[in-house]
């Protein structure tokens, strides 16, 4: 599955269990490696922070691209997110995995950006899909069509859908990241799927 390293805490739920996740051993090993890199970064080792960036930036960049639907904005936000993550590392307590914590920062930064972009978002017509590497799924749904359709979702549904189905977080984690109830996360994801079905049928 396409889930990135950053989602090592992700757990399947319900129908999502159709798709394989990394084994818990892999997840534990990756988490330990991340913890060590975080510790070394706190001691001032640039190399360790660079390693964290290399491990997690593709997942964060994918999220930012799909959330913002604009490559230049996604590049700016990616840079901001990692600088913010670096600044906040001292307060990172390790209760969640670094990847989960980073996703939380990322999705909220993307939502803030969309809010501040406000009405202008509707007028942005820069084609994003050629930048995204969506590929055909087993069921015949073209990845690029899906990427394009995701761009038509309202921001909150888009965020919940991407966190749950692309990154693989369960609804409890999505709820914590977005500051919403578990039921609200489910409802947003269901609405997103229904809307995507309509968009893809056009």
């Amino acid at each position, binding site marked *: *599955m*396409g*889930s*990135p390293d950053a989602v090592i805490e992700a757990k399947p*739920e*319900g*129908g*999502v269990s*159709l*798709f394989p996740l990394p084994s818990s051993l892999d997840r534990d090993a990756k988490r330990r490696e991340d913890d060590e890199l975080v510790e070394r970064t706190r*001691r*001032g*080792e*640039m*190399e360790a*922070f*660079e390693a964290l*960036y*290399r491990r997690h*930036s*593709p*997942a964060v*960049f*994918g999220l930012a*691209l*799909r959330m913002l639907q604009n490559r230049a904005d996604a*590049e700016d936000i*990616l*840079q901001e997110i*990692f*600088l913010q993550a*670096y600044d906040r590392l001292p307060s990172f307590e390790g209760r969640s995995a670094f990847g989960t914590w980073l996703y939380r920062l990322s999705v909220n930064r993307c939502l803030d950006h969309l809010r501040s972009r406000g009405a202008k978002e509707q007028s942005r017509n820069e084609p994003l899909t050629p*930048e*995204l*590497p*969506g*590929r055909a*799924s*087993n*069921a*015949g*749904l073209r*990845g690029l069509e*899906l*990427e394009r359709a995701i761009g038509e979702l309202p921001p909150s549904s888009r965020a919940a*859908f*991407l966190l749950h*189905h*692309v990154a*693989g977080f369960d609804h409890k984690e999505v709820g914590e990241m977005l500051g919403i109830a578990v039921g609200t996360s*489910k409802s947003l994801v*269901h609405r997103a*799927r*229904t809307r*995507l*079905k309509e968009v*893809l*049928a056009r």
Partner: protein
Amino acid sequence: MTEEHPEIERLNEYLDQGLDPRDHRQIESHLGRCEECRRTLSDLSAIVRGASELPPVAPPEKIWESIAASLIERKSFSKSGSRSAFFTALAAAAALLLGVSLWLVMRGETPPPTNQAALADMVTEELRAAESHYDKAIVGLEQIIAQNDGVLPQELTSVLNQNLDLIENAIGESRSAIAGEPQSTAAQESLLQALRSKVTLLQNTILLINEVRKGQGENALDLIDEMRKTPGAPISNVPSNPI
């Protein structure tokens, strides 16, 4: 009598296995009889599967370079030893080069002076400023390379030095041409191009040192390959087994 279709929300819950057993059986039974609902469920399933297959996206390398430069500018890594010095110098060189780039942009926007003598003075002054920026960047980069003497294999170092000598010759020739004809735009452009080539070669040499230090031989070989093709400053005579 026509059977009523379940709401799509219920099909979504069925897909997530979120219904109680009785409702689950009810939907399952309906699906057995209703092709339209089977198609809806199949579409929703395809969306879920398609989403799970969307891959991560590698960001362009320039993003990390900007992050590293920002952190170094804030002196976040000032106590981390030689690697910190490495990045500090790279960031300083990048800042100086940015200064030159801005100069080149602003140069095009400056209103032309009214007489030829004033024009000549202005161009000479601007060229001197650009040269000074490049020279400072070059000094910084050369210092890092000197601090990492011995990291690269001798044969490769020798080839890189030969290529630097060629660029040095071009810089010398351009400076001679400018001395003979200070207003020559071609000579000025040629000098700036040669300085740019030198900076590019030095920057690539440092990246190469970095890859070798990290033990990333394959990355180093890729980089050497790119250096062979660098527009304006391709390196030549690279040994067959450089690393």
